[in-house]
């Protein structure tokens, strides 16, 4: 018998057509069957009442760290996938810097199996570019492709060898795989732990200049021209980097980019009193950089908002700043933070949702980010008026490293469906579960 579910009375956001329409989403056997005006309540269909909510394609995060295998004390595929759906994400792509590194098909298959067992968000592994992320020899990209990777990246370890980068870009075209680059020149960064500028000078912390990121992007744009490869700049953070990417795209090069919520929301000032939750690579920059990232996100220079969800144990953050691990968790705060961009007038709702759905889905070639008939019924129901306070201690993620703890946000995923199945729900007690048969 056909399983039917109707997500009724919501405002359906179509990031492709850039429209918001009051409509029902009819789901049959895990796939979208119709998006239509309501009041066609069929007797056998269960109904989820999405009144006063937006109904959007399940969000896609193309940059997370799930830490399994090897660092399960920080996060596992299962806890990461649970955190994802709590944030409205139904598809996530996880980076290769596990232990062992995901630089071969066996590790890829392991991650795929763990993801299937987790039954929350869909998890897509990203394979390493180089063996052991060492930047020396190409990993078996083709074998990993067959096992299920959706992109390649040495994220966390900038590829300093331009010849290897050139070959990686060329080789990846064979599989039409995106190469996601962590763009920071390791020599110029030289142990920098925050943005180089007045704040780093004041605090006596070693700075990493914006130029460290920009010259790597300049190099790799030149290599895209040379090779015809597909370059994706991970967590772009500087104004000049955005300008270079915009210019490369205008010339028709296959260069794309993502920005993180924290680079879109925070400046180096967040380091303030040596707050290790403001330590990331690339570092938080200046207000001018934040403004440029926002403009780039609005005009499409930046295709995607990606969290760079980087779970760490408290001990790895509660220490001297120089010693602290890089990065923060992001899956459960990304949407609420991103909605501030709408409130700030940076972009409209369909554009924002596009950066969280179609943008990353298209780059990775995922069957996600759309509510077209026949697409997997991955849906996020967002209450745009819901006011909530970030409480790190109740995260589904194993880790609590966030600079946003205690922030008051407006707008939240209140229900998440993967393949038509309700996998997460957060309704205030006053309005209990409204899936009724």
């Amino acid at each position, binding site marked *: 018998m056909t399983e039917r579910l109707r997500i009724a009375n919501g405002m359906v956001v179509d990031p492709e057509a850039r429209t918001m329409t009051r409509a029902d989403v009819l789901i049959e056997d895990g796939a979208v069957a119709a998006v239509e005006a309501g009041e066609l309540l069929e007797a056998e269909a269960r109904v989820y009442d999405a009144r006063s909510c937006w109904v959007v394609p399940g969000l896609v995060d193309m940059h997370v760290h799930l830490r399994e295998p090897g660092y399960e004390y920080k996060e596992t595929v299962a806890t990461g996938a649970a955190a994802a759906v709590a944030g409205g994400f139904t598809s996530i792509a996880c980076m290769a810097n596990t232990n062992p590194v995901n630089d071969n098909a066996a590790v890829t298959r392991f991650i795929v199996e763990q993801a299937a067992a987790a039954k929350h968000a869909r998890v897509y592994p990203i394979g390493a570019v180089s063996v052991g992320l060492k930047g020396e020899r190409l990993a078996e990209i083709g074998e990993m492709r067959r096992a299920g990777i959706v992109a390649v990246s040495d994220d966390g370890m900038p590829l300093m060898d331009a010849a290897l980068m050139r070959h990686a870009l060329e080789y990846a075209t064979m599989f039409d795989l995106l190469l996601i680059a962590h763009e920071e020149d390791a020599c110029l960064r030289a142990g920098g732990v925050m943005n180089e500028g007045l704040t780093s000078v004041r*605090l006596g912390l070693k700075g990493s200049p914006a130029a460290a990121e920009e010259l790597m992007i300049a190099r790799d744009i030149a290599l895209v021209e040379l090779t015809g490869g597909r370059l994706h700049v991970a967590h772009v953070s500087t104004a000049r980097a955005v300008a270079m990417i915009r210019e490369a795209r205008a010339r028709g090069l296959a260069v794309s980019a993502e920005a993180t919520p924290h680079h879109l929301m925070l400046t180096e000032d967040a380091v303030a*009193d040596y707050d290790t939750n403001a330590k990331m690579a690339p570092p938080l920059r200046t207000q001018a950089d934040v403004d440029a990232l926002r403009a780039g996100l609005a005009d499409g220079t930046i295709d995607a908002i990606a969290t760079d969800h980087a779970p760490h144990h408290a001990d790895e953050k509660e220490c001297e700043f120089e010693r602290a691990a890089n990065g923060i968790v992001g899956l459960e705060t990304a949407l609420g933070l991103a909605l501030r961009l709408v409130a700030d007038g940076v972009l409209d709702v369909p554009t924002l949702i596009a950066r969280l759905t179609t943008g990353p889905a298209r780059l990775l070639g995922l069957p996600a980010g759309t509510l077209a008939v026949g697409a997997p019924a991955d849906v996020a129901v967002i209450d745009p008026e819901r006011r909530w306070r970030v409480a790190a201690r109740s995260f589904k993620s194993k880790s609590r490293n966030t600079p946003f703890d205690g922030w008051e946000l407006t707008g939240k995923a209140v229900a998440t469906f993967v393949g038509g199945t309700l996998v997460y729900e957060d309704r205030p007690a006053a309005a209990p579960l409204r899936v009724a048969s």
Partner: protein
Amino acid sequence: MAFAQRHLLGLEGMPGEGIVALLDSAASFKEISERDIKKVPTLRGKTVINLFYESSTRTRTSFEIAAKRLSADTVNITSSSASTTKGETLVDTARNLEAMRPDAIVLRHPMSGAPQLLARHVTCPIINAGDGCHEHPTQALLDLLTIRERRGQIAGLTVAIVGDLLHSRVGRSNLHALRALGATVRLVGPPTLVPREFRALGAEIHTRLADGVRDADVIMMLRIQRERMGANYFPSLDEYSHYYCLTEEVVRLAKPQVIILHPGPMNRGLEISSAVADGPYSVIMNQVTNGVAVRMALLYLLVARNKAEQADSEAGGDVAVAASGKGARA
């Protein structure tokens, strides 16, 4: 003005009156060290821990003598004996020390911000004895006390600080304090070691030593770290010395009554010639003497007086504490 801080983590942001109050207090403590019996009972029964994760002779000894002259019990934990070599984190060390109920912890640490971290995990006062490339507030206070003794006041003076400002905690603390008291501060050194950003903190920047010291009232030389050469901040010690060694010839460009400071330990013949270091303008030994007074004053203000005020406020009475060191000599 009362000194209301709980810790002394740095001088950035401290108002001029607060610094003056500290200097006044320190000046009043100098006399104790001139006595035949150099000890007062002010901190009897108090425990001061010197927690040093970096080697230091001068600063550690100065803090220890300061505490002992106030009758505090002192415990020295140095990097070789610190648990950190056994893998214990600073936070765990802090919690353990806290459990032993110290009355103050003096911290020297190779990483910037370590005192801020410690202060978040203990309740007793923390005195920063130098953290990474960040601040060394007691050094700057003893420098200011020395300058004030010789010049009467800080406001209006031109102070040239010469050397590796990028990595200098002494330079940063002095810059903040000197600016707060109205001095003109010139930072002098090769562009690799003097970030332009210091301008936003109120400093003038000079690359040529002659420009930097011309008509200066005070020249403060910083120690050049030999290990900086490896990172190509400058090509060789010889070349550095050629451009930045303070010689008698250079000193003549400054005001006739110029005074010369150095936080030590000096690299004689590298950043300062022996003739200058031992010459008539040098106040380097006065700095060392003043270091003890400054640290006595701080321990008094942070340990004895804070406790007294706490007791007073607990008793519901008005806070009325004798200014500066008078209480100590009672």
